[in-house]
């Protein structure tokens, strides 16, 4: 361990300045910041695409864009938000927090860490460049189902290669996280003493390692089907397009937990801090997270109930899917029990966490509705599904990321954000997120299909409401950027322990946190 610390210290002296500092950095905080800024940029790129979609759907008929471009927007919006905004945001938070939380000087593999990040800008440049190709970008949906995705334009190999790069980046990041957590904890910090955010990230990293290679395999098969004459999915050669759906969702369902488990960790950190109580049921939180992760590998076919599975298959996937509600329910009850009789205060991170619990649970309930196979035949590929996964991803995962940024910003920068502006940001975001996504439940139940640029006139009112909400939500996030820059321009005033009820090793460090977190490992009892 000590050789590693000396090595890092030595590098500190030779640190280049300016742009080269960021390109060559192996420091976990620098790389964490790069990930978070990149994620914010992608959040706005993907958000801009969402606004194009909502503008087109403001009224029935085709007004702004042609259907082909609309399909490119729905496809790209999903790819950018999943792989560009959410996953890098969580990896950025892991980079900043994990070494500080477990009492380590840095991540276990600093150079690999640098590489994991710098793959991303190239991958997304390639992905976004396909929009300017003749024939445009990918338009078959982010799930890339054949035969449609095999019939697309020239963008397809570029999209697949950029997905390969993103997968490689995620796998390298996950290996780094596991190597750090398993090998670099401070003496005395046993696994069951780790902060819950560290636990959720450890489990997420294992999900990434198990799921991302399967995506790589699936898209490689698409590529060889299209260009090398194989017939994995082409029916003419004896292949089966439904097979792709099985392989894709074998990756895809763990993927949606990759997007939410770190969020659970963030909420489980923030709720105790502002309730001034220890997290209720720490052990059960760990076991619940692990159970959700394991179950995620045996529920994939609930994304494809309508492909013509046998009854036994439908029933199996229905019940395993519903089983996930048990560990998830344990988590929600634990959060509520943590707040019970706590001395609660309602600063911005806490407000976002509270909204998370309520709105994520709404998304969970609509998920249960979708799990019911006979009902799913009605809901499948409607706006009800869109409402469901946006409720778990926007006021779920994204709210958790925003809460985490507000919560740890004083530790990262030594500067406290403006609480009033933070609360304004919270209320605008929460009101508009519901205006955007709640009406989608209604149009979905009434039968409006997803991924369609035009719709029947009876859906107009709810679509107008949703579009107004979407533009309000987008504008509210400009306030978030304003708050961030305003905070960064303040003088350093934040206390080492920025929140009264905050617990954990990171709060024993000065604010802003020093460049190298723990040169000598702290003692944990």
């Amino acid at each position, binding site marked *: *361990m000590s*050789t*590693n610390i000396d090595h890092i210290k030595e590098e500190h002296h030779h640190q280049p300045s300016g742009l080269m500092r960021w390109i060559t950095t192996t420091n976990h905080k620098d790389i964490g910041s790069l990930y978070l800024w990149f994620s914010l940029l992608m959040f706005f790129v993907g958000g801009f695409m969402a606004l194009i979609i909502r503008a087109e759907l403001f009224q029935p008929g085709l007004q702004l864009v042609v259907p082909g471009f609309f399909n490119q927007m729905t496809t790209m919006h999903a790819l950018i938000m999943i792989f560009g905004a959410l996953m890098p945001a969580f990896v950025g938070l892991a980079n900043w927090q994990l070494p500080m939380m477990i009492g380590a000087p840095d991540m*276990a*593999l600093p150079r690999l860490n640098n590489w994991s990040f710098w793959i991303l800008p190239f991958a997304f440049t390639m992905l976004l460049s396909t929009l300017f190709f003749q024939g445009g970008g990918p338009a078959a949906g982010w799930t890339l189902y054949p035969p449609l995705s095999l019939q697309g334009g020239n963008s397809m190999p570029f999209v697949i290669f950029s997905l390969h790069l993103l997968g490689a980046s995620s*796998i390298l990041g*996950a*290996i780094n996280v*596991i*190597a750090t957590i*398993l*090998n670099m904890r401070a003496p005395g910090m046993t696994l069951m003493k780790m902060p819950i955010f560290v636990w959720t990230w450890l489990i997420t990293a294992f999900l990434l*390692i*198990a*799921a*991302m*290679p*399967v*995506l*790589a*395999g*699936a898209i490689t*098969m698409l590529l060889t089907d299209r260009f090398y*004459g194989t017939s*994995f999915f082409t*029916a*003419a*050669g*004896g292949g*089966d397009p*439904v*097979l792709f759906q*099985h*392989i894709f969702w*074998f*990756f895809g369902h763990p993927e949606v937990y990759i997007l939410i488990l770190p969020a659970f960790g963030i909420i489980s950190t923030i709720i105790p801090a502002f309730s001034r109580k220890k997290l209720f049921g720490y052990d059960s939180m760990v076991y619940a997270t692990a159970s959700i992760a394991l179950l995620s590998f045996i529920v994939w076919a609930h994304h494809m109930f309508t492909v013509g*599975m*046998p009854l036994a298959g439908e029933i199996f996937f229905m019940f395993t899917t519903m089983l996930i509600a048990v560990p998830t329910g344990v988590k929600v009850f634990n959060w509520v029990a943590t707040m019970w009789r706590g001395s609660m205060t309602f600063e911005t991170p806490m407000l976002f966490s509270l909204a998370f619990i309520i709105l994520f649970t709404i998304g969970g309930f609509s998920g249960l509705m979708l799990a019911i196979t006979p009902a799913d035949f009605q809901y499948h590929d409607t706006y009800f599904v869109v409402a469901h996964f946006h409720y778990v991803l926007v006021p779920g995962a994204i709210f958790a990321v925003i809460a985490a940024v507000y919560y740890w910003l004083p530790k990262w920068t030594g500067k406290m954000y403006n609480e009033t502006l933070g609360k304004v940001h919270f209320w605008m975001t929460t009101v508009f997120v519901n205006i955007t996504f709640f009406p989608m439940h209604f149009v979905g139940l009434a039968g409006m299909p997803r991924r369609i640029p035009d719709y029947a006139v009876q859906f107009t009112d709810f679509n107008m409401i949703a579009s107004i909400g979407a533009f309000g939500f987008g504008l509210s996030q400009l306030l978030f950027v304003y708050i961030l820059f305003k905070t960064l321009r303040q003088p350093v005033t934040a206390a080492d322990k920025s929140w009264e009820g905050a617990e954990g090793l990171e709060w024993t460090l000065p604010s802003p946190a020093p460049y190298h977190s723990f040169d000598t490992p702290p003692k944990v009892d």
Partner: protein
Amino acid sequence: MKSVKSTITKLSLVVVAMYGFSYALVPIYDTFCEITGLNGKTNEVAYTGSDIEKENRFIKIKFISNVANSAPLYFEPAVTEMTVQVGKPYNTHYVMKNNSTKQLHTTASPSVTPGKFAEYFKKIECFCFNQQTIDSGEVKDLGIQFVVDNDLPTNIGDIVLSYTMFDITNKVVEADKL
């Protein structure tokens, strides 16, 4: 740092194994479909057995056809339904016409509905075992010889045999160039 190295080695093995698993899913899926009779896949090589005995039981077979991706082909069954005796071999055929101005290469993909009865529908001879080459304007009869296995459960409804015809000219021409 030795422990870090061993962690990396183990995790890399998991990554490689999971990549391999994605490919392993292909035969697993095929085997699973075969055992459970999902997808209505019929035998892909000719049935040559002789242990099927005639039974005094009759069942209706319906024949349907599809042309994939609007290929320039006429492709229809010669008869759309037959009442057949279980255990007795029958002959029928489909008719295909090339409506384009060039020679085409085609292949057909069969499917039986309900899928779980596919294993009882035995093809002794079928055009779907081979690819076809058809000249511009040519009309071809594509024959099938089949027998319904006497293990077929009783009190079932009709069986539907469907063929989807694919134009694979581009693939064949490209393969010839190599």
